[in-house]
């Protein structure tokens, strides 16, 4: 991202339920491990992550989106790799 683009980023009214498309590769924070399902809540949208490590919660991972329901703002994805942890 160029210096100029950094200043322009975020000049918009962003929705609370971002949507993604199959094939998108995202870097996300894993937010929960509920009932055996590893999930990342992005705003009020939810991405269920398959094949994630057992200790994935509160780590930052790369995930490939497999399916996405734009009505329910939910989807599934496949774990690729762990790239970091929580900020604190």
């Amino acid at each position, binding site marked *: 991202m160029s210096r100029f683009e950094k200043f322009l980023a975020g000049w*918009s*009214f*962003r929705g609370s339920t*971002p*949507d993604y498309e199959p094939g998108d590769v995202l870097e996300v924070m894993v937010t929960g491990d*509920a009932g055996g399902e590893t999930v990342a809540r992005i*705003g009020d949208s939810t991405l269920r992550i398959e094949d994630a490590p057992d200790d994935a919660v509160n780590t930052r991972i790369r995930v490939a989106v497999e399916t996405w329901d734009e009505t329910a*703002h939910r989807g*599934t994805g496949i774990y690729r790799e762990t790239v970091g942890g929580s900020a604190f």
Partner: protein
Amino acid sequence: MIDPQDDDSADRVDDEPPDEPPDDVQPDRVPPDGAPPSGGRESAGDPVLVADGGFGDESGATNEPRISFYGGKWASTIPLAFFIVWAIFQSGVLGIGDTNGLVIGALVGTILGMFFARGDWKTYADTIFEGMTQRVAATAIVAWLWAGMFADTLQVGGFVEGLIFAANALNVGAATFPAAAFVLCGLLATGIGTGYGATIAFVTLFFPAGVLIGANPVLLFAAILSGAVFGDNLAPVSDTTIVSAVTQDADIGGVVASRFKYAIAAAIPAFAAYLIAGSIMSGVSLEGAVALRESANALGLVHLVSMGTVILTAVAGRHIVEAISWGLVVAVAFNLAFGLSSVSDVLVFTVPEAGTFSSLPFVAVGETAGVGGSLYTGATGFFPLIVLTLLIVAMAQIMIRGGGFAAIQEFLLNSVATNVRRAELTMVLGTATINGMITINTAAEIAIAPYIARIGEKFNINGYRRANILDANTSALGYIFPWAGGVLVGYQVMVGPGGLGEQYGAEMVVNPIEVVPYVFHGWFLVIVFLLAAITGFGREYIPDRISEEVSRA
């Protein structure tokens, strides 16, 4: 990537989506007591997706409290809670803006908490070390040391005198003086990174000049405080900017760039408000020479280049240590090349007797041996804050290891921050509340930063956005209320020994409570972020873009 219009379909508290299973098979939520979730999906392999984002994550072996307290996990909050009460009493009730005093409060709180720890106190003591050695504290400390040296070098290089020259050259009158003070103090604070320092410099030099030519003292003081808010909020070398970035895993240059939109959205109406109020509110009648204006020095404005060097280098993605180092090199070069300061103003070794080295430009003969100059005072000026920071992160670590942190976080996530909009409002109002109470704003920011990080991460809110929410109220509320540190340092210049009151009379002293409504930029910044949380203006998620610098910090 598709970015739809906002909707509230995911608010799982007020409006259950129609496709949700009944309550008795709802996905796990963490009970308020932090016990492992009791519910759960009937089938882990079921393709139906979870609905709550999976907040039921804090149980299990990875989060077992390591320190057990008499009184349960809430007792682990005693050190930090005691410190907050101390800070409120010291700064809020007694009006004492002394960071060293807060250090003692943190020490006493840490000792007090130890008496509630069960078993061997070694674990408790080890946790203090564990907290202090966290990267977040070290990163902030390094940045502060560099920023301090840069800021003081600009001060000795006559940057303030340059700004006074600019005001003279622009022929600023009584009505427009507050608006000019807002802009110029904002420039100074953006350059030197300390709103307190900018407030002291401007109240000392600029405030009496303005009052003497007929500007309203209350409005002028408030305008100076607004400028301090602007700089504290936006400057890459500001202590609050640094804390906001490093605690949210975001690079400082990127944070400054992303913060610009909020700062401008508040600053433009604030500037207009000062122009309007300046033409309405009359000044006081004071006779006196405007000798202060004789201190104006056009050459001091070269430090706009020093300041620009830091900002542009940081925004370009270079490490903040590198960015400030370049700014420091440029500032020292300008000081020496233009005669704005001597070598000894920047660095001086003072010896009691002349000797072999006393002819060197950075060696002086004086009564007391010591080291001085802007590099020395700039770095050492942050020592109390550094010690306080280490103690606060240690207390926070005790709370984490004792389970109190998770308990508060679970309460917020399960009961308050139940969707992204509420989460952001919780972050905005949480920072406002803590900064309204602890008025030494960097201390307040460090205390609330872990919650902003965790609550924001639970909704994948981008580190830039989290850092901006964290810093806005920290900067704003530290300069609005009468007990705020920024207001107190300015007031001290007026009422202290040899202060403006003694020099010019009571008309030159402003009651701190009178300025509260007129710190326009501070109020507008709070309003901008409340609206941003509600409308989604500026909101970015973690998948949108990745911070660049922290991994190299």
